[in-house]
């Protein structure tokens, strides 16, 4: 018998952090892509991670819900120490929602089914309950009228909003976003960011990999800059944008910020 996973482990401070990453190192074969990364996300905190392409941002957040494995260090989600045990991974994935750059909606299911199916399979809701909850969240992302369409019939922005609704409908404790607007046409970026801002205002804990510095300024509590598998700098947005400490951060900001 596999022992039941510890669902909640209070830390010394009281309530556990939403995500606690300690000295995380990861290799792809011989290539090391994360170097002893430490990251602490409090409940209700909004984190933006930025950094040049290939710096390990995706890899880092994908280790949190075990889409990627890791070799050294420790990850705790809501106090649960992430291992490779099925029950533990299940428990962690229930607490973590994820939105991908490429939306990854299920093309064979309607928009409504995309949101309702996981609710039935994972949250064990009845068909009617799942439907109601799915509609509730589709309304929140402002596309209830598209519920019976298939993903291929929607614009990129609409698809990404469905993907957000699908993840949030599972009522996770943390939401991870991996460049949610990078695959969108410019005119659709705003509708997706608006939904994310709304989510932040409701107090959702969010870790967002993005180059949308306006979004970072508006909602982030902290901005993390990563380069070559390391967290180089982290600061509140105001300080991060006006007084970057390292040369690499300055060089990066010069490229992504409008002049």
């Amino acid at each position: 018998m596999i022992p039941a996973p510890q669902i909640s482990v209070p830390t010394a401070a009281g309530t556990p952090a939403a995500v606690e990453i300690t000295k995380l190192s990861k290799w792809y074969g011989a290539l090391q892509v994360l170097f002893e990364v430490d990251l602490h996300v409090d409940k209700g905190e909004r984190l933006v991670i930025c950094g040049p392409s290939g710096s390990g941002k995706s890899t880092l957040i994908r280790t949190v819900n075990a889409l990627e494995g890791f070799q050294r260090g420790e990850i705790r989600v809501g106090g649960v120490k992430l291992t490779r045990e099925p029950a533990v991974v299940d428990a962690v994935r229930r607490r973590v929602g994820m939105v991908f750059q490429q939306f990854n909606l299920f093309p064979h299911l309607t928009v409504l089914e995309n949101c309702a199916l996981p609710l039935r399979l994972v949250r064990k809701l009845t068909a009617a309950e799942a439907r109601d909850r799915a509609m509730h969240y589709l309304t929140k992302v402002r596309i209830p009228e598209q519920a019976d369409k298939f993903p291929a019939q929607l614009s990129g922005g609409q698809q990404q909003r469905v993907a957000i609704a699908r993840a949030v409908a599972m009522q996770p404790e943390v939401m991870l976003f991996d460049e949610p607007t990078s695959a969108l046409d410019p005119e659709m970026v705003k509708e997706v960011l608006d939904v994310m801002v709304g989510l932040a205002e409701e107090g959702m804990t969010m870790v967002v990999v993005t180059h949308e510095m306006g979004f970072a300024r508006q909602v982030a509590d902290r901005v993390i800059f990563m380069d070559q598998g390391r967290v180089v700098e982290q600061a509140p947005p105001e300080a991060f944008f006006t007084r970057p400490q390292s040369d690499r951060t300055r060089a990066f900001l010069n490229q992504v910020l409008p002049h």
Partner: protein
Amino acid sequence: MHYHDNVDYPPLLTRPIVFGPLLVGLFAVLWWFDAANSAIGRLVAGIIPAGTTPGMHGLLTALAVTLFAAFNIFVVLRLPLRQQVWLVWGELAAVILLFFYSFDLSFAFIQRKIGFLLTQGLVTTLYISAVSITLATILALLGAIAKLSSNGIAQGIAHFYTSLFRGLPLLMQIYMIYLGLPQLGYVVDAVPTGIAALSLCYGAYMTEIFRAGIESIPKGQWEAARALGLRPTAVMGRIILPQSMRVIIPPTGNQFISMLKDSSLVSVVGVWELMYLARTQGQTEFRHVEMMITASLIYWLLSIVLELIQKRIETHFNKAVTR
């Protein structure tokens, strides 16, 4: 072509460079192979004036048939696309039936035997095929999942299974089960032998089809399903397999049609299925051709039914993309 361009290229058959040589070729073939003295010649014999020399008669026959073909193309090209397809299909089917008809068949004999051919032969063929199709599908699913699993034993078994059963002639498999297993002390009846051999052989081919279908689904689909907390069986059964069906169904339909006809190989161990009866019933009265043609047409009709079923299922699994 699949995605239509918005250019009206003239149809091939309206271009003189195509239809000219085509008609000349047709005329030459008809004339050279002396169509006048064949079943084709008899069809147009009525319109050739009497009293022409044999040489002239041959030329006129070839000319008449060629003109008829040209006229036919001319008419067909003026129809809407769907009607073109059906008309051409029907014409070709008529030609085939005419070909069969030209054998001077005894329809009385066919009438006498067809009842038995259907109640015994067709029923057995259908029974063997239906059971084998079901078992082969299950084997293929298990084989594909085993090949893609991280379980070394399962992978080893699956690789060996596809290698062996795709590698041995089906006929040999039937003999080995029927004649070989009794050596080990297991006597297998003829019908179960047939079902076992067909299921194992086609399961092996279809394992590869299923594997390719599953592999055609992008990684992001797996990741999204896992990130939502779906368990492995749900990921496979609710997300991956339903999407792979689009890729799996066309070649699987092929396999089913092929299996339907390969079920005739089971006749070698004395199963009274369609092929066996066609052979034996014809023998008694030296009416082989009648029985062979009747059985052929039954196989063909069954294949058409499978084709139609395949089409329906394809439409079902395509609806998310086409609607």
